[in-house]
């Protein structure tokens, strides 16, 4: 399934370790999965840019021996849009979190999906703002305890995969931590996809979220994921009423379609105008 002999260290900036991540955090695993996908795709690291905003997950580009653009809170996708349009040859991968891309950066997320720009967004959903100490985020489950919902969260959370499907993303997938083979294969597909790819990975945050919500061991966290997610293949078997009543997060590859990609269409426009100009010059 994947190269178990891979020495992942060749992709890392060793002088950045030890990392900032807490014990039990899922972000390091996402880095591992991403780099394995990058390795299998034989991506040229000189031609790859890892863009991020602010938050724990946004610190990932700092650990990768490649180009990194660690930007302002919520704006990673907007910065990445400039990088990609200026040089479409670059592979542009965005690391972001639920707060970064769904709250302060929500506008950039939906518009990048709408444009179908060839970017890959890897969004780590830990259901809270971890870096600032565990506040409610737009994906915090109903009733959960956080430092800003001490009596239980009473706002309905976003289903970010649904949101970006609605906005026009052409590759959308979601996996909880604990499905390494599926996740690596999914990131590989997302990067190779010609268009806007959005991959959500559900990850534990013991410091900010899971510990406060009676999920104190890996076993309990795993059981929560099992109980609150449903594979897309199983979801498809539900009848219409059951689908409407479903409150579990659907996991798996949720959308994979082709639609006109922004940089390809722009290049066509440039070529068309150049041909027209040449005809004017010749006549």
């Amino acid at each position, binding site marked *: 399934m994947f190269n178990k002999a891979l020495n992942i260290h060749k992709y890392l*900036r060793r*002088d*950045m370790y030890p990392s900032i991540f807490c014990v039990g955090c899922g972000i390091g695993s996402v880095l591992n999965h991403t780099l394995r996908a990058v390795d299998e795709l034989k991506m040229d*690291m*000189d*031609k790859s*840019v890892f*863009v991020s905003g602010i938050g724990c997950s946004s610190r990932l*580009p*700092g650990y990768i*021996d*490649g*180009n*990194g*653009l*660690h*930007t*302002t809170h919520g*704006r990673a996708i*907007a*910065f*990445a*849009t*400039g*990088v*990609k*349009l*200026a*040089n479409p*040859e*670059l592979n542009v991968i965005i690391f972001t979190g639920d707060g970064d891309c769904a709250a302060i950066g929500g*506008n*950039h997320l939906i*518009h990048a999906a709408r444009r179908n720009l060839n970017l890959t967004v890897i969004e780590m959903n830990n259901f809270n703002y971890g870096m600032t100490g565990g506040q409610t985020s737009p994906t915090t489950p109903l009733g959960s305890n956080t430092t800003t919902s001490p009596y239980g969260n009473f706002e309905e959370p976003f289903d970010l995969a649904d949101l970006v499907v609605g906005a026009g993303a052409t590759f959308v997938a979601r996996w909880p931590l604990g499905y390494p083979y599926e996740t690596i294969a999914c990131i590989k597909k997302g990067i190779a996809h010609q268009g806007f790819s959005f991959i959500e990975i559900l990850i534990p945050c013991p410091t900010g979220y899971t510990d406060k919500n009676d999920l104190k061991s890996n076993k309990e966290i795993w059981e929560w994921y099992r109980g609150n997610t449903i594979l897309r293949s199983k979801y498809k078997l539900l009848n219409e009423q059951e689908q409407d009543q479903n409150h579990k997060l659907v996991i798996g590859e949720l959308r994979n379609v082709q639609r006109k990609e922004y940089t390809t269409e*722009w290049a066509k*426009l*440039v070529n068309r*105008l*150049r041909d027209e*100009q040449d005809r004017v*010059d010749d006549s």
Partner: protein
Amino acid sequence: MPGPAGVVQMDKASYEQICRILGEKRSFLQGDVACAYGALLAGCDFFAGYPITPATETAETLARLMPRLGGAFVQMEDEIASIAAVIGASWAGSRSLTATSGPGFSLMQENIGYACMSETPCVIVNVQRSGPSTGQPTEPAQGDMMQTRWGSHGDYEIIALAPNSVQECLDMTLLAFNLAEEYRNPVVVLTDGEVGHMREKVILPEYDEIAFTARRQPTVAPADYLPFQSVDESLVPPMATFGTAYRTYVTGLTHKESGLPTTDDAVAHTRLITRLVEKITRHRVELTRVEEQFLDDAEVAVIVYGITSRVALNAVRTLRQQGVKAGYLRLIGIWPFPEEKVRQLGERVSRIIVPEMNLGQLVHRIRELVPDSCQVSALPSIGGRVHLPAEISSALMTDRKSPEPEGQHHV
């Protein structure tokens, strides 16, 4: 590559292609359009923006012309995204631009600070309108002089230029791109709704009149390259772009010369921020651009910038005809502030009038610089009304010890 400043000429084929797309060498243009022309002649190949009065014509012009030159144009979802895309594009190797007005400029401030911190060359045209808030969208103002200098949080320096004609909109935008590359810093072109929307004759510069400052490239091997280490007295580090063997990590966090973050080291922070400030202030003299008229024997003077200078020069000429020894100092480079020119003038004249289309912004900086023997008076005009020449000449003739004229704000 030529000397350390990286001044080369744009290749002639590019120049000729741009001129072919722009059309007539002499034309009758709006200031906003001239900014777009100046950008293209500076080699600008990326624009991201969001519609806003009175700056939209720059975006409209580039939407039409940019794809014909093979560059990129994108209308973003807001101004925060626009400046973000501009910074991203710069790191991917583009000479990048956005254009906006007050409300959009306010939204851009956090990322302008990011551009300063990450030493990203880029150009922002701010066609000023009356504020605060939505204010008077179609009316000119000069209300963003201090926001340009201090709008983002923390300590930083910015370069800003204030054209007073449509021709200067072209010339200053072109210059802004070269300064952005030379100092690896954002540069703001501060026009206003009047300069941006009025139409005047514009002459496109000839090929050998155009300077082209190329980005400083690293000269060391990739393994030895430190993207935030100054290598000479300019204090401006060479800048590799994404996609080369010089892998670069960029962050808005306080960082080491390698670019990697170090957030609790007072020495590293002080060293970084001091260099970012000094790389501009050390070049204050080179960055000083003023127009001086009738100053040799002046006893009173006006210090002025932007559209207001056109009226002020008229007022000074009229006073001269009446035998009054009035002088005129126009600030073209606003930031870093041309301190020496203002200080010297303050030592020579007894009174300085500062007409501004705000309730008094640069007047405070001027007052700090001149000796007590020189009276400095603000002459505000807000609401979108450009001063009348008579108001300026009358202020130059009025002893400040006498009562303030009716309706004039005492600042």
